[in-house]
């Protein structure tokens, strides 16, 4: 079971690497914002697998906060880039 969870963590790390390639490539700023959102979701998945590995429930709050921050970051950056947030 530990080997399965560790390899699952490895696959999630690979997913974050793929999203990072998209962050570097772009081509538009919105692609970067969207890839960062995907990285935040992958981080949440990694945190969940870590909480199974360590068999603790203290990371459940981290899940909620990271999901909230990812959403807020995407929305605020979209509003800023669209030009409706600042005049």
């Amino acid at each position, binding site marked *: 079971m530990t080997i399965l969870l560790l390899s699952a963590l490895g696959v999630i790390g690979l997913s974050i690497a793929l999203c990072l390639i998209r962050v570097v490539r772009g081509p538009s700023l919105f692609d970067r914002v969207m890839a960062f959102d995907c990285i935040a979701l*992958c981080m949440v998945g990694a945190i*969940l697998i870590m909480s*199974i590995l360590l068999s603790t*429930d203290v990371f459940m709050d981290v899940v909620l906060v990271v999901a909230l921050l990812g*959403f807020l970051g995407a929305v605020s950056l*979209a509003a800023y*880039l669209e030009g409706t947030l600042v005049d």
Partner: protein
Amino acid sequence: MGGAVVVGVFFMFVAALGVLRLEDFYSRVHAPTKAATLGLIFLLLAVTVYLAEAVVLTKAILAVLFIAATAPVGAHILARAAYRTGVPASPNTRPDEYAGVLERRRRETGQDEPESAVDVREDEPGA
């Protein structure tokens, strides 16, 4: 529980693969909203089954509701902002209905789109 972990991680990987491989922004923005949400639901299920506590179940349900509500909204806001600032779509995008809507609205109100604060169209050909 191991099965839920495998399925969840598979969907997270599919989401990242879609972010990297799909051809234009408007199709790429679909990948993390749908696939990653499904993957997170399965991972939360695995954690809940493994720990089997009421607190974890409550927070997992809260997280699922929150992610299922915010991920489509965030993707929609991102795609709309991208369209209005002129991020190019793939040439295979055939019916472009929002262009007609924007054109009609511009004729009715007689004002242009809000100018973007930053130039987002940095389309480097070598990338």
